[in-house]
């Protein structure tokens, strides 16, 4: 090449030419993405027009918002003063004054740190389930939760001693996540008792007693499973635990409580409201419905005709009726079906019925997970000589549950949105219950859009982030399977 001296041959390559203006940069992008065809151009213009209409219609209202006022009338006055008579503006002052009711309902103001801490602990307790004991993610996650929690606690004016105690607790948790993430599972195991104690308060001993019942089930099960088999062993365990819960527990915890009075100030469940209520109902119902749902899903795939028929009947019945009827059953009918003198408060009854409701949906999700497992897994378990329960416990369930997590998360999103329906039986849900209470106040009578926008926004943030997370999880799980 280099000894070619002919003058008509180029010695060096020309630099590539710039693409034509229509084929590069923003113009190309616009051409390809917005105006690639007549139909596309029309759609683009329509889309832009729709966006413009929505924004031009609502923007002034948002911009004219009033943040500091003590009543609707004052809001109207301020807007009229600033932007002229006839201008409309949002009255965010209501949110400013009542935000705590939207968050916590009537929970005592000085105790707000308890639900906040419980919420943070709940997220930590999900870590072993969702993060698969990855040291790095666990540390980052618990660290972020701790920082946010501290900010939130500061925001709700937590007393200093409590602040220090919670800080210490979360420091320990972060340290555990850093050093030995697998021990985080203890947070998960203890969370039901701790969460109950934080939210409802009362003596430490009653949740301890309740947990002791589960310990009894575990002990009985491990002692008898070899001789009696898993179902009978568990059954005996449940019977022993029920005897403990119903007849013995109160005789043990009562004296313990009087001897050593540990505990928090009691908060009745009728003081729960707003998003606190939505989370309590949603989280309790989903987690309580998981074991029931697993049993129902297994029952539906069982070889025993009676078990199968009962499971199918239950699942289809529950999935066939609207949630509202379940809620009205909780508020109107449950008292007919329980022995006279049985007294549950309405929130507990609603939680029970919502749990029953979501159990049917969870059962279907888990059934999907079971069906998605390759048949080889079952056959491999059989080939190893595992019996039914061993196979379920060691081979099938760990995989099926992992596949089902995105489905469970979307069930939770659905249920969380549906908790707004409890307003129809008189509970203080954020959307209608609290809003109605606010509107009954003579100062805020006539306020309309602001509460809905506020509540809708929070719902969106919570549900959207959960659904995004479940999509991420789904992708991750898909990769695991390849």
């Amino acid at each position, binding site marked *: 090449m280099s000894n070619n001296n002919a003058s008509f041959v180029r010695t060096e390559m020309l630099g590539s030419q710039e693409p034509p203006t229509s084929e590069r940069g923003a113009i190309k992008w616009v051409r390809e993405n917005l105006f690639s065809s007549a139909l596309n151009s029309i759609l683009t213009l329509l889309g832009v027009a729709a966006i413009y209409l929505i924004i031009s219609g609502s923007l002034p209202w948002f911009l004219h918002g009033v943040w500091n006022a003590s009543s609707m009338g004052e809001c109207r006055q301020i807007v009229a003063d600033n932007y002229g008579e006839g201008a409309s503006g949002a009255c965010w002052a209501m949110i400013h004054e009542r935000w705590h009711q939207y968050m916590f309902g009537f929970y005592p103001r000085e105790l707000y740190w308890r639900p906040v801490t419980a919420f943070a602990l709940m997220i930590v307790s999900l870590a072993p389930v969702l993060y698969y004991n990855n040291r790095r993610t666990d540390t980052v996650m618990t660290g972020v939760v701790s920082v946010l929690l501290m900010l939130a606690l500061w925001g709700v004016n937590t007393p200093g001693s409590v602040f220090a105690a919670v800080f210490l607790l979360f420091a320990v948790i972060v340290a555990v996540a850093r050093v030995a993430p697998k021990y985080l599972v203890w947070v998960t195991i203890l969370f039901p008792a701790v969460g109950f104690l934080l939210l409802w308060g009362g003596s430490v001993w009653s949740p301890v007693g309740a947990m002791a019942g589960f310990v009894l089930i575990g002990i009985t099960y491990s002692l008898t499973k070899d001789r009696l088999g898993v179902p009978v062993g568990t059954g005996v365990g449940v019977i022993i635990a029920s005897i403990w819960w119903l007849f013995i527990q109160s005789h043990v915890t009562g004296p313990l409580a009087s001897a050593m009075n540990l505990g928090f100030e009691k908060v009745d469940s009728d003081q729960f409201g707003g998003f606190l209520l939505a989370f309590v109902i949603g989280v309790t119902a989903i987690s309580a419905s998981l074991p029931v749902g697993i049993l129902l899903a297994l029952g539906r795939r069982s070889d025993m005709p009676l078990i199968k028929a009962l499971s199918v009947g239950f699942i289809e019945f529950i999935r066939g009726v609207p949630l509202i009827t379940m809620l009205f059953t909780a508020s*109107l009918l449950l*008292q007919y079906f329980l022995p006279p*003198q049985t007294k549950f408060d309405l929130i507990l009854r609603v939680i029970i019925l919502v749990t029953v409701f979501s159990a049917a949906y969870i059962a279907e999700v888990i059934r999907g997970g079971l069906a998605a497992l390759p048949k080889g897994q079952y056959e491999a378990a059989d080939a190893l000589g595992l019996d039914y329960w061993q196979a379920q416990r060691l081979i099938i369930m760990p995989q099926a549950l992992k596949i089902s997590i995105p489905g469970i998360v979307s069930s939770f999103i659905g249920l969380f949105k549906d908790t707004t329906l409890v307003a129809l039986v*008189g509970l*203080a849900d954020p959307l209608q219950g609290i809003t109605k*209470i606010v509107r009954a106040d003579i100062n805020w009578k*006539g306020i309309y859009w602001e509460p809905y926008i506020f509540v809708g926004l929070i719902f969106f943030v919570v549900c959207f982030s959960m659904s995004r997370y479940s999509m991420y999880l789904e992708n991750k799980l898909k990769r695991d399977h390849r």
Partner: protein
Amino acid sequence: MKKSVFLGAATVAGLLAVAVSAQASTLDDVKARGELICGVNTGLTGFGAPDANGNYQGFDVAICQAVAAAVLGDPAAVKYVPTTGETRFTALASGEVDMLARNSTWTFSRDNDLKLDFVAVNYYDGQGFMVHKDLGVSSAKELDGATICIQTGTTTELNLADFFKANGMSYTPVTVADDSEAQRQYLAGACDAFTTDASGLAATRATLPDAENHIILPEIISKEPLGPVVRHGDNNWGDIVRWTYYALVTAEEKGITQANLDETAATSTDPETRRLLGVDGDLGAMMGLDAEWAKRAIAANGNYGEIFASTIGEATPIGLARGLNALWTQGGLQYAPPFR
């Protein structure tokens, strides 16, 4: 085969096991619990709604507080259970609440078929209509063909149907879920007239930005005696709620107020006042309460007139006149039987 035999046997066994357990008296329950459970509205301006701190306040709520004061000695020992139109009577019948103080109309079928006892009437109301002034209507009889906003699930819709039927007129109902929704629809012009209890109309009108453009028509088309309700069958408890309420009315009649209560008790020479306040006689013991029950009930929020004035009276933004609810001595219907 085995299955059906067993099913039958189990059902029979279940049927045989029917035994009605004797219900403990509500008074004992309340005392043992140390708390009165009171069914209230989920939110009705002036009559019962929680404030920013979650404390319930209002005309109906004051009755709960008076009963709690009389029975337990503490007007704050009340747990409020918000009830909706659908759940209120069931909540009461199932024992979830001890009493209902929630604008409920006393009707024959509710009293008999629903097994409830309406112990007294704390507010005489009646159904009326509110219309825009520029509609040019001055009487409910001119509403033929109108669209009318009405709350569902209450006696109001039955009254409305009856009224239009009796006058040979037609109307289009626009059913709404609750009071604030009705107000919004009416203001948006979705209906020509808004009908509900006259007290509710007055309260709504008072909070409108342009109250002068709305008129309440003169016709009152129904009788709506609203009052506290208790379960059927526990007469002692019913008596306690009833006479606690009458104690408040009698207190107004006798001029006993929250402020002069102790002074009156010490100095009054009026025999009925002395009996009421437990200075003479032993009226409280007849109901299973102590002698000073009525004194505590009055001390809670004052007498009937004071409660009215502070929650829904003319000095409040709601601005209701006493009207039918004035004492019988002043031309109203509030009349307490003698304390004797």
